[in-house]
């Protein structure tokens, strides 16, 4: 088994998924730490360029949620 862990960049909608991520904390859930969250005002703001930029910077996965 390889030790490789994907690096994930996520773009979360302020009104739903970002709040859900906060709630995961309040509920003391646990998940791996190899994720970096960028808060956006709405997934409507999401641009393909952001996903491409993140991948170009070395992210292994991009997660957009909203």
């Amino acid at each position, binding site marked *: 088994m390889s030790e490789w862990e994907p690096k994930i960049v996520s773009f979360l909608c302020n009104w739903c998924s970002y709040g859900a991520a906060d709630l*995961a904390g309040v509920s003391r859930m*646990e*998940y791996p730490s*190899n994720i970096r969250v*960028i808060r956006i005002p*709405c997934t409507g703001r999401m641009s393909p360029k952001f996903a491409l930029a*993140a991948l170009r910077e070395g992210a292994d996965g991009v997660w957009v949620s909203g």
Partner: protein
Amino acid sequence: MGLAKRKSAYVEYAQAVPLKYAIDPDSCIYLKKGKCGACKKFCEADAIDFDQKEEKHTLQVGSVILAPGFKPFDPSRFDNYQYANLPNVVTSMEFERILSASGPTMGHVSRRSKDKAEPKKIAWFQCVGSRDLNKCDNFYCSSVCCMYAIKEAVIAKEHIGEDLDCSVFYMDMRTHGKEFERFYENAKTKHGINFIRSRVHTVNPVPETDDLEIRYVTENGEIVSEIYNMIVLSVGLETSPEIVSLAQKLDVDLTEGNFCKTSSFDPVLTSKEGIYVCGAFQGPKDIPQAVVDASAAAAAAGEKLAAARNSLTKTPEKLVEKNIFGERPRIGVFVCKCGINIAGVVDVPGVAEYAASLPYVDFATDNLYSCSQDTQEVISQIIKEKNLNRVVVAACTPKTHEPLFQETLINAGLNKYLFEMCNIRNQNSWVHKNNPDLATEKAKDLVRMAVSKVALMEPLKEAELEVNQTALIVGGGVAGMAAAQSLSAQGYETHIVEQNSQLGGQALSLFKTAKGEDIQERLSTLNSEINSDDKITVHLNTKLTEVEGFVGNFKTKLSSNGDDQVLEHGVAILATGAAALEPKEYHYGKDSRIITSLELDKKLIEGDPTLKSLNSAVFIQCVGSREPDRQYCSRVCCTHSIDNALELKKRNPEMSVYILYRDIRTYGEREILYRKAREAGVIFIRYTLENKPEVLIDGNNITVKITDHVLGRPIEIGADLLSLASAVIPNKDEALAQFFKVPLNDDGFFVEKHAKLGPSEFATDGVFLCGLAHYPKPIDESIAQGKAAASRAITLLSRQIIFTSGTVAATTQADCSSCGVCISICPYNAPSFLEEGPFAGKAQINSVLCKGCGLCVASCRSGAIRLKGFDNDQIFSQIFSMNEAV
């Protein structure tokens, strides 16, 4: 609730406001025995004070609002259900906690018996402590239990899976709320929940299993015995003895059911002037109705206190905002320990030290609690002393704390948008508590990303908007009239637009309220009060033909018989009402003796002498309601027909009166009418949608054929009068919905901002709603909602000036290709083409309408739109500064 143990230091519940710990004096060892005190030793914030005592304060007030709520009925005294003895017989309130993700079982449905097994078969018993004068004294219907039982059954199936067997044992299924009937239908057809019309008489333990055997009689008269794993008692609502004695102290009258006595026309005023009531103490009710009442009570109190408005407010001193134009970023980073919440996992001083090494960071430190008042002052001092022009706070979540820190910036003379928050608690220390090193690394990355973004932040302006102080009410029924009176009493110019030639709406055709008050008498008083009110202008025979503008500044064209007038107003209340369905069945229209409920009311209002000489009268319920193509309950008809049946009985006690119904829905204390009707000899016969009554006209005779639910046989009733409880039909005014950009649901009722928490307002700012246009409701509820809409409108009007958010989209017109995608994609109608000037034909964005979602920014193919505060370069800088992390 006693379902789980809790420590002496506790938070009341997960959503408590404020979310602070308290010490339970009944279990704290220190308070009881003077030993321990461990919490005081460990609390770094030094927040423990064992000497706090109850204090008494005296307040001088102009109005009092009673909102003490209800107490769930305690079923311990019902020996037949054995709640006190059998662990797997629980109350509905306990079951709510069992379903809750923050409850004792973390949302895993399990039994209370020692096996903690997941139940496979659950039964709900309705009307436990409601509609029961046999085993308890609560004659009334608690209004909410049918709906919550269905909801609990549906959620239980979601948690456990489709195989869970759920049965609800009931007397009448009362889903009279908005969208509730559909929920009930879906529960039956999509979720497979069984609904059994029966009152279970015994629950017996099944030896050695913790299961429960129940015995009940089916509708066909069979005695059935079944085994369930768990039983939920749907307990009713009652007023606690403490509240009863409070009411006595306040000299406030109570009803027969121990709820606060009110009149239908003043639904939130108690019997004592100046004391108002809302919520379940006014009568058993669900959340939206309680929220309506709350706003109405606030309006009623506000009407009396209008003269004193703003007389006790203090205006904070405003610092002049520092101009930072042309300055290089000088960033201050504050890393929060949040006690041990963050510092227990993340190396906070290490993160602060790292932050100090980042570009443009002039200052970095850590704080024990960044949100505490003293730290706020310290941060504000540091900003001034170090001449910082950007601030990053690494702490909890911006969703709760961003406004607080922005306030700190304002107090330090900085524009509040020169700020970025970075979430190292909710999305870091709390979720990676077993990986402190990785969490610290992540915190550093998040701080670096925030620093690189904040360096690019610029001061943003919030558009200032004057709110026109005039209100427009569309619709002059009782809801609109109540709203107008409340607005006028609080000092606001109000215009009522009514398409008909007189005010009153549906109330003009109604005889009496459920409480027996004369509607026409009250309506004429209301009419003259409104006509003599200087602040209310009534526009009869008038329609809206054009609406321009937005919150605070609407321009509406009113047309009356060819005359046009433009009215400028700051808010609009839609009270456009509804109408009675003209029945298409039961031979309506073919015989003058077959009439609708409203037509019977007309006869009662006019005192028609022929009513006395009738030998028999039949009422048919649900005419057009609760049908596949109109899947809602019209809410008012059961009470209305029973009331009218009693009126007929009063005129001629010998008259045979029949009510043919599907479920009797006399919710709340209206149940008393149902009882009175049965006592007066009104005969109730139930029918089903599949087996509707049949009406035959044969010469002079009208005959109604129906299968009697007790006899199980078809019977024929001769009717001298047939009253049809026809459905309440919304006006479905699509043009009006378009004018104010507000939605209609499938049935044609307006869709409110939030089904539970925002029932009297729209998601569109500055537009409010009340009355039948929202959902069918009786007069008292319409008046309460009229007041509630006024109350919500005044929260806006009284501000006089409103500020919009600074994070809005803006166009660079030189880059715009005039494609119009932004205009078609925006849900809020914020973009438009400029009509004149050098950039005519290019898009502009109205910052007042813009909600800052960024949809137009992402869709603009020319890159001509930017979203302030979430600009491309700002988001890219976050992505680019991640490089070390990814």
